[in-house]
């Protein structure tokens, strides 16, 4: 273990980790928003629209993230979509996560008892109000564990952004490896950083879960 090399590369590695966290956060938040929109449209629209969105979901879920990223980054310019590495990576992550999030929301919405929606309809609430006041809050509760779980999976997909030269943690680790041949140290750092990130996310997730289910759990 060569500590001096690590010291020398520490600023780069830390910056890389910062970019990893940024990419993950951005991709997760926008992926959740996009997935939520898809799930809502699917719930309320006629068959053809639902079917089109299902095709989108199947295509994205059925292809590796690496391939999607290549298509976006190298194929994009062919249709006039010329993106720098970072924006391409962020957009790619957002798109990649959206169908999984959409499916999570779809089944979470289905878990909201129909009777509670009918109770709202029966007093004359608009569908928009029902979504806002009943469906979303209750859907989020049942979606939360799966949302946290998939956002943890997404942390590890960010390493693929290194291939299109986004200077995130994996990119820096590879650079350090090739420049110093310290593969073990470099990858150990990678592992430690990811472990810390995942641990933090799951802790926050558990906290959120206890908080939002506090009133929903029946006293036994």
């Amino acid at each position, binding site marked *: 273990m060569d500590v001096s090399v690590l010291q020398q590369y520490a600023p780069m590695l830390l910056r890389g980790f910062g970019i990893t966290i940024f990419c993950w956060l951005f991709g997760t938040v926008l992926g959740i928003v996009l997935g939520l929109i898809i799930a809502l449209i699917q719930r309320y629209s006629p068959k053809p629209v639902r079917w089109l969105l299902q095709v989108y979901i199947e295509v994205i879920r059925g292809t590796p993230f690496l391939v999607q990223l290549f298509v976006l980054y190298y194929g994009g310019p062919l249709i006039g979509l010329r993106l720098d590495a970072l924006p391409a990576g962020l957009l790619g992550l957002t798109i990649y996560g959206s169908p999984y999030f959409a499916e999570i929301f779809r089944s979470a919405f289905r878990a909201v*008892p129909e*009777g*509670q929606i*009918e*109770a*709202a*309809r*029966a*007093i*004359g*609430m*608009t*569908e928009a*109000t029902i979504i806002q*006041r*009943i469906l979303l*809050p*209750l859907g989020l*509760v049942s979606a939360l564990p799966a949302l946290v779980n998939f956002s943890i999976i997404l942390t590890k997909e960010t390493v693929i952004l290194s291939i299109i030269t986004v200077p995130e943690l994996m990119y820096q680790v590879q650079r350090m490896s090739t420049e110093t041949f310290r593969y073990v140290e470099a990858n150990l750092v990678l592992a430690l950083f990811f472990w810390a990130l995942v641990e933090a996310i799951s802790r926050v997730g558990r906290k959120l879960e206890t908080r939002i289910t506090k*009133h*929903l*759990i*029946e*006293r036994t």
Partner: protein
Amino acid sequence: MVQASSVEIRKLDKFYGPFQALKGIDLTIPPGKVTCLIGPSGSGKSTLLRCMNFLEEYDAGEVRIDGQMIGYDSPGGSRMPARKLRDMRRSIGMVFQQFNLWPHMTALQNVAEGLVRVRGFSKDQAAARAAEALEKVGLSDKVANHPARLSGGQQQRVAIARAIAMEPRLMLFDEPTSALDPELVGEVLNVMKTLAAEGMTMVVVTHEMGFAAHVADQVAIMEAGELVAVDAPTRILHSPEDARIKAFLKTYHERNAF
């Protein structure tokens, strides 16, 4: 005295695919009166009740609330605009077998929600009105409880408060006590009796024969999607002429005999 609606149901048909759940129902619900719907499981009681606030779409015939057809513009016509339907539903309260309270809101919030979102009350006005409604059902001490912290009987009383806070002119009850432990049935029936005494139009699907006998002004008996009898409770429950009614009541007497 509350304002009370009447309901007229004419030649009502309802299909689930090829299965006909309601077969030409004709029924008049007089204003300010209690009508109990009884009949065996699967006979179409819930379906009929749910047609009255158009939670269930019907296929033919008419359901009129105070003369105004609900769900469609005219008999056999197109669906009424969503806004119009919502307006009609505002004055129809419904109480479900499974309570259907919103679990993420306190008792007070459950009752206040519709007042704020549908009636346009301010938060304070709504809270005051909600507190009144909860007091009426005897739950002043439970306003801050979430449904998970209420007994079944208390939950159902909150559900009734949620409905009456909207000042409905018609109340629909679908087996309001069937999901309750026997010792909790009384508290809910008592609240319903109070409402009946105030002159609310009530349609109650129930298996509580005691309630039907003592509180109902008319009893309607359903079987296999048809209305087989509508009459005063004493006439129906004590000296039924129709063989089907006799058979149906017999199962009740047997079940409740000691």
